[in-house]
């Protein structure tokens, strides 16, 4: 069970449900620590007062806000806590809306809510919220305060649990004004061809098919470094293609390729065995396919050995 980040209660009309909150997303990216190159010791960050050139303990640090007229206002955490405009231990549901009416651009971080305590009544009230909301793609809109910040949140049912997502405020979404919206409206024949191309490249949404190649490569680099190998960054070889003068001809060519299966519709998945030193077991044709997937420059004139080197390097 993950660590709870907040506890309080969700308030819906006069119904109160004590809950705890867990993050529904975790960053699995490879983490780095800052180290001192000379001795490999960890780097610590220490806070110093610039006036006195002296280290300052945490409790002596305040928060300063610079006003436009050059004046500075210093506030304490207690003062910030005190202006919280609402109960800080409650998620107040203000309204319900259709999920489809909220553009995903507003969604920020996902969480789960779970009932807390041994009370059967609490679990039943939680279950009641799940049952009442788990239809017609309804979301509850509410607010709550966590660590001296107020959040607007959307609560919906996911995996039979209440799922809370923090949302961006309306004024935190930038205007699209001034961004180039492109050239002229496409002719019907062109649009039809483009629609046909997109449909030809259409697949089901399979999140598991999209692996984190960056994470895998970084883990691989770390493993090789550990074994004392040298690692070089690949050259930036793929040039940006130029826009085509004749869109219609390009659409036809793309459709023909999509139809012949030359362009794979399914996402490319990097094969794990390609990283495990079994490249020598593959034929040149198989190696060439891998090289094509990885866009290895000069692959067509490479021998089997050269392809293995290029794929490993």
């Amino acid at each position: 069970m993950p660590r709870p980040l907040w506890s309080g209660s969700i308030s819906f009309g006069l119904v109160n449900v004590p809950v705890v909150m867990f993050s529904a997303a975790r960053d699995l990216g490879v983490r780095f620590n800052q180290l001192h190159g000379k001795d490999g010791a960890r780097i610590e960050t220490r806070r110093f007062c610039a006036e006195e050139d002296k280290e300052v303990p945490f409790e002596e640090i305040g928060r300063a806000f610079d006003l436009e007229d050059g004046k500075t206002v210093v506030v304490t955490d207690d003062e910030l806590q005190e202006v919280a405009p609402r109960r800080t231990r409650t998620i107040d549901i203000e309204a319900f809306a259709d999920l489809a009416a909220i553009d995903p651009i507003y969604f920020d971080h996902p969480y789960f809510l779970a009932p807390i305590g041994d009370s059967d009544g609490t679990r039943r009230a939680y279950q009641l919220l799940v049952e009442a909301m788990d239809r017609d793609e309804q979301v509850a809109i509410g607010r709550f305060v966590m660590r001296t910040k107020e959040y607007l949140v959307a609560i919906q049912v996911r995996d039979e649990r209440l799922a809370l997502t923090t949302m961006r405020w309306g004024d935190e979404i930038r205007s699209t004004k001034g961004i180039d919206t492109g050239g002229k409206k496409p002719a019907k024949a062109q649009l039809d061809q483009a629609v046909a191309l997109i449909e030809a490249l259409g697949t089901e949404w399979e999140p598991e098919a999209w692996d984190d190649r960056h994470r895998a490569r970084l883990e691989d680099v770390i493993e090789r470094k550990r074994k004392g190998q040298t690692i070089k960054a690949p050259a930036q070889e793929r040039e940006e293609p130029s826009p085509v003068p004749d869109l219609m001809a390009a659409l036809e060519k793309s459709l023909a390729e999509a139809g012949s299966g030359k362009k794979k519709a399914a996402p490319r998945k990097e094969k794990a065995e390609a990283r495990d030193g079994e490249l020598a077991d593959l034929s040149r044709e198989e190696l060439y396919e891998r090289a094509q997937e990885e866009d290895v420059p000069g692959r067509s004139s490479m021998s089997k050995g050269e392809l293995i080197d290029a794929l490993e390097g």
Partner: protein
Amino acid sequence: MPRSLWNGTITFGVIAVPVKLYTATESKTVRFREVHLADEGKIEHRRFCSKEEKEVPYDEVVKGHEVREGEFVVLEKEEIEAAAGDRAKIIELESFVEATAIDPVFYEKTYYVGAGDAGTDAYRLLHDALGATGRAGLGRFTFHNREYVVAVRPLDGILGLHTMRFADELVPGTDIDFSAPSRKPAEKEIEMARKLVDSLHEEYDPAKRTDSYREAVLEMIERKASGKKPRKAKEKPPEETPDLMAALEASLAGKQ
């Protein structure tokens, strides 16, 4: 005119669409800087070597990944870059999926995508065709030496790009474990709760709600600047609902 963060090319089929990327969201949270309460002196973060008890200049700091408790593998900048792939400025839309099939929980950060200086007809064609099919294009995108999977879809008359979380980065609901109530809520209670949901239904309008906490913090700062005492908000502890049905009935009655 906003400034673009990245210029590159989106491709679908053999069609190249030159594009420019822009920031779509910005945090308006009131930002403070750290000060020493005693003398309002600026707080500086200084790097210290934990072994030598000595300040370390930035060029002596390296990045290490902890492979085992206390064992680090140090990577040079170039070696970290090696993991970014070929870093080509191309987003190849490899497949197209029903936009509504993607749970927004996968979307992490959003960017606006505008047309580039050339090939602007191709940009409009991609935009309109995505709109007509209701599909989003999926591809890989390297930005600041990090490779992302992204979804491209029409958004407010232009194209929007979302960087996406990977499937294993989402916590499954089954990881959140709690026991079921001894008896389920009664049909009548569910019906009442649904009535309450319906009575609170609204057309969602993001402009309708503002960050009242941000406003209160700014007001407090102003009051302090002019030498007044900050106002305090009151807090009332929430309590558990003893009688669900009675609370539902009272909530509904309060709405009418």
